[in-house]
């Protein structure tokens, strides 16, 4: 009997370190025998690095885990430390934290929509190829990203690894003038975001829907950033500190990867689609209006349509930023003192890519004894693998190059965090 043909497809998407392909697919005949989606290294290096550091260093150190979402890491670590210390931010700090998160969502979502995802839908190999024929679209994306960065600069001191953020608040609270300087840009950004929803809503999407367990924060009064309970569309409703009781990471035999699962051992899904499904009513009116105009329901279960949902979140982030700025009254001080008695604390905040969970154990000496960080992309790993398997199965008759391209596009639905990977370049010189 003839052995079915075996194919190996390696998508070297994220990491260019030898042998570390991001997607490995083994096919025998018309059956997928193995599919492994490997992101870059999980933040394990940072977990070890944090041990022995002072608790106040956690935001600065963890910010370096992600170049696109440093604020998310800072916020999750800060909230965990404040839980140990038993402090709550002042009302002003609470709003400023939401504002800085708006900036991060804007820059991250804009980058993804325009430079990473849009080229797929328009049939371009990359933003570079797209820029030749759609320079305006690329420029708009860059301008939106720049506006998000400006918010981070004004609040955080700089856009890459903001330095103004600390346990207890901010080293320096912005003045009214500081924030007012952002208004014009954010007004433009809001309009551009609404247009982005319209444009994204008209793209061609494959028919592909799944029954996800959507997990996100939920807060009764606001679309979530920093605070709330962890809920799912299947009835989960727990406090942030209960994350370890309802989710777990398991070592995968064949690689070093850790897979996150629910307590029942099943995959789950975090990110814009999860927030949208769980918290739709809490979006701003403009965001909801734009979503409806684009034909979205209150739940979107097609991962390809995440581009539209990210655009809706862009509208919300602009609205929310403008609201916070308009209501802002500079506080007498940017932060409160934090006394660290030692203990265990948890933080879960909504990074652009989804729920980002931190847990720390701090000693009475105020030094970190243990750290556990679970990124949104690693929480999505199993769902992504399931999706890719389902997506690939009917497309197996494509040749390897075509299939690889389809799968690369599918991976981009999840906006996996690329900035943590080594980006250096493999150099090939062709002499003619």
């Amino acid at each position, binding site marked *: 009997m003839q052995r079915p043909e075996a194919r190996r497809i390696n998508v*070297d*998407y*994220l990491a*260019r*370190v030898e042998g570390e392909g991001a997607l490995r697919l083994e096919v025998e005949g018309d059956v997928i025998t193995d599919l492994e989606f490997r992101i870059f*290294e999980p933040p394990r*290096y940072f977990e070890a690095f944090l041990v022995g550091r002072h608790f106040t260093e956690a935001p600065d150190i963890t910010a*370096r885990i*992600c*170049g*696109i979402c440093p604020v998310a890491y800072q916020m999750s670590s800060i909230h965990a430390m404040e839980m140990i210390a038993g402090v709550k931010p002042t009302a002003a700090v609470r709003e400023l934290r939401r504002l800085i998160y708006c900036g991060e969502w804007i820059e991250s979502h804009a*980058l993804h929509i325009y*430079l*990473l995802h849009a*080229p797929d839908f328009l049939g371009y*190999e*990359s*933003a*570079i190829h797209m*820029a*030749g024929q759609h*320079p305006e679209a*690329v*420029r708009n994306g*860059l301008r939106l*990203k*720049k506006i998000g*960065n400006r918010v981070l600069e004004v609040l955080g001191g700089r*856009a*890459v*690894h903001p330095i103004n953020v600390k346990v207890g608040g901010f080293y320096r609270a912005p003045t009214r003038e500081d924030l007012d300087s952002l208004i014009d840009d954010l007004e433009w950004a809001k309009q551009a975001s609404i247009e982005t929803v319209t444009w994204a809503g008209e793209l061609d999407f494959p028919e592909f829907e799944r029954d996800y367990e959507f997990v996100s924060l939920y807060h009764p009064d606001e679309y979530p950033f920093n605070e709330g309970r962890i809920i799912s569309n299947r009835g989960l409703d727990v406090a942030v500190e209960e994350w370890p009781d309802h989710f777990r990471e398991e070592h995968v035999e064949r690689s070093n990867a850790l897979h996150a699962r629910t307590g029942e051992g099943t995959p789950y899904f975090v990110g814009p689609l999860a927030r949208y499904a769980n918290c739709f009513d809490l979006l701003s009116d403009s965001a909801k209006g734009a979503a409806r105009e684009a034909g979205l329901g209150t739940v979107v279960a097609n991962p390809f349509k995440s581009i539209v949902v990210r655009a809706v979140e862009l509208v919300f982030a602009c609205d929310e930023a403008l609201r916070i700025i308009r209501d802002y009254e500079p506080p007498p001080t940017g932060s409160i003192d934090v006394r660290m008695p030692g203990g265990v604390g948890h933080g879960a905040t909504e990074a652009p890519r989804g729920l980002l969970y931190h847990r720390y154990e701090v000693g009475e000496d105020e030094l970190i004894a243990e750290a556990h960080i679970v990124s949104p992309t690693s929480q999505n790993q199993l769902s992504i693998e399931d999706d890719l398997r389902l997506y690939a199965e009917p497309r197996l008759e494509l040749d390897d190059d075509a299939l690889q391209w389809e799968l*690369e596009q599918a991976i*981009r639905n999840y906006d996996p965090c*690329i*900035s*943590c*990977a*080594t*980006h*250096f*370049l*493999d*150099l*090939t*010189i*062709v002499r003619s």
Partner: protein
Amino acid sequence: MSRLVVGFGNVLRHDDGAGPLLIERLGSPWAMAAGDGAVEMVEHMAAFDEVVLVDAVRSGAPVGMIHRFTDGQVYPRSWGGSSHSIGLVEVVELARALGTLPGHISVYGIEVQDTSSGSGLSPQVEAAVDLLVEELAHA
């Protein structure tokens, strides 16, 4: 002639930090770490007559070798793996497509060895960085 120097890389991946470390030693305010901060460069470089871009590369050449592509020489477009990551190639080509690429561009690739997690450069890479800092400081 006004000049912008951009260093690409991740300082927490050993030799991949060559670019940012070069910038730090050069004393230029324009240092881009890995991640997409580099995208800002696309429009920012329009204000300069010349742009110099520095990155870590792996081509099999001896560690510490500096690949130079100065004015007039075409740097390898094959640099850059995924077409959707934002690195040196994407920044240059986006700028070219949008008309913001300065008339003078130079690209330097420092051949690296260790890009595992951690900080610090291999000695040959560090030597290459210092050499390039000297050259650029006096250019």
